[in-house]
């Protein structure tokens, strides 16, 4: 699924059922992938801690989707200026709607405001948005997140400056 300007660096595939049977898979996979991607970075340590943080948040969201049926494929691509991480999985109608609504706004400033108001809910012991972790990575790390629906597959794309 890499375009001509995007070079596929690595692709990893999980059986969704296996992935979702142990919470620690999020942490392990995030750290492993982050280290792999960062091994050639200017500052491998800092880059890897940052990448692991953002990948883990997205994997935790995916874990909570409880999509047990098919596979989860993670593709890592290099577009020269950006690192692109595609999380490809099939999703129930309900989950697709959730992401459609989450991605209806793509104004970064607006999303930061939403994050702050969601944090306020946390502080007030109210229930916060279930994707608050995604708001946070957009607000804190300038991660660009997008969602694309293709036949049979849904792609959550994470783009960060290389």
């Amino acid at each position, binding site marked *: 699924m890499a375009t001509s300007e995007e070079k596929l660096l690595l692709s990893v595939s999980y059986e969704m059922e296996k992935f979702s049977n142990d919470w620690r898979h999020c942490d392990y996979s995030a750290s492993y992938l982050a280290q792999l991607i960062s091994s050639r970075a200017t500052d491998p340590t800092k880059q890897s801690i940052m990448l692991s943080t953002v990948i*883990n948040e997205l994997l935790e969201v995916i874990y909570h989707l409880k999509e047990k049926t098919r596979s989860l494929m993670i593709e890592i691509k290099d577009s020269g200026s950006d690192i692109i991480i595609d999380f490809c999985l099939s999703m129930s109608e309900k989950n697709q709607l959730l992401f459609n609504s989450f991605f209806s706004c793509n104004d970064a400033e607006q999303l930061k405001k939403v994050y702050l108001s969601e*944090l306020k809910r946390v502080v007030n012991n109210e229930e916060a948005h279930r994707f608050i*972790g995604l708001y*946070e990575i957009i607000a804190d790390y300038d991660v660009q997140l997008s969602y694309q629906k293709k036949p049979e597959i849904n792609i959550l794309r994470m783009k960060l400056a290389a």
Partner: protein
Amino acid sequence: MTYQVMYNQNDQMVTFTGCMRPQTQEELLEVNKTLAMAAEKAMGMLYLNFNRLEFINNMAFHEVMKHIGLIINAKPKLTIKIIISSVIPWSEKKMTWIKQFYDRISIEQYDNNFYPGQEVIENDHFIPVLRTQTKIIWAQEKKLLAEHGLKKGMSVADICCGVGDFISLVYQEFNPSQIIGIDHSKPNLNYARRIAEDNGLSDKLKYHYGDAGNLFFIRDNEFDFVTCRLSLQIFDKPELILKELHRICKPGGKIYLTNETYSKTLGYPQSEIISRTYEEASKMFKFLGMDLEFGPKMNSYLQDAHLKDIRIDPMMITTDSTSREDFKVVVESWRDYICNDLAIANKKDETYRKELTQGFNSHIRAIESKRGFASWPIWVASGTKS
């Protein structure tokens, strides 16, 4: 998810370590218990130290944040200081949000303020000093490294690596299986990376931004040969750095240090003015918390770190052992750095700085003169980890 949370009553500090990525709130009971206990016992200022927590997920962050709120509300006389590290990207981002919700919270980046002289050491005016020094040291150090146990194919970590010249030279000479450099100066690291790239070696020579006193991103027992050159002497608590060097060194591996007796740098003719100059320079370093007379103290520090086979050798750089031209360039770089950055940080006046400049110039003349002599004493020490 493996994290530790500990409260130290003496420092009134809760320290978080490891990786905190829980699935459920129950996994954070220890955090809640420790924070509640700390809030109960602490008076005045409570410190929450996150500088060794490599990861935290949002779920844990929210719990910690809520608990901080509980403490702030329940203890109106308590102030909280959150300690973060510039090495851990999430810590500054996440913790800054907390300040938006609660009063009596402050955030301190602990690695902004390791030791009083940090600013003068980490600025880019120091780069010419480091570059030229390595050049005149290497011919002798190469031999001493081998005598102190560095062999081809070993894995090497150079802590406080500066601009990376040493790493490049070790790479060429000893062909290590792996070599990394860690430093806390961004200008130095940028310089080091540029040189590696220019030489087509950026895949082999890896430079990491980090704090020598907190190398949490390196596993225990990872390297065969751990070096820390001309650097223990700049810290006011060298034993803390040594502890980390020891931790990352393999059992049977070596820790290798070099340090100076800077005030004993000599020259002839004009010996007196030259000696006085270096004594003054050493005092100015001392004023900023750096001990450039650390060389002879290494034996006792290495013993305290429980190393065996401790060996100490002199490495005397003289006008005989190195090119006079290169030695002169080193002293020029010292003069420019010490009479400007260092003297200014010491709040020395113009007259003092002029006199000091003349002292360095006398040393330069001694080096240039065919009948003159100059020396710079460095001490090389190593020990084996049991």
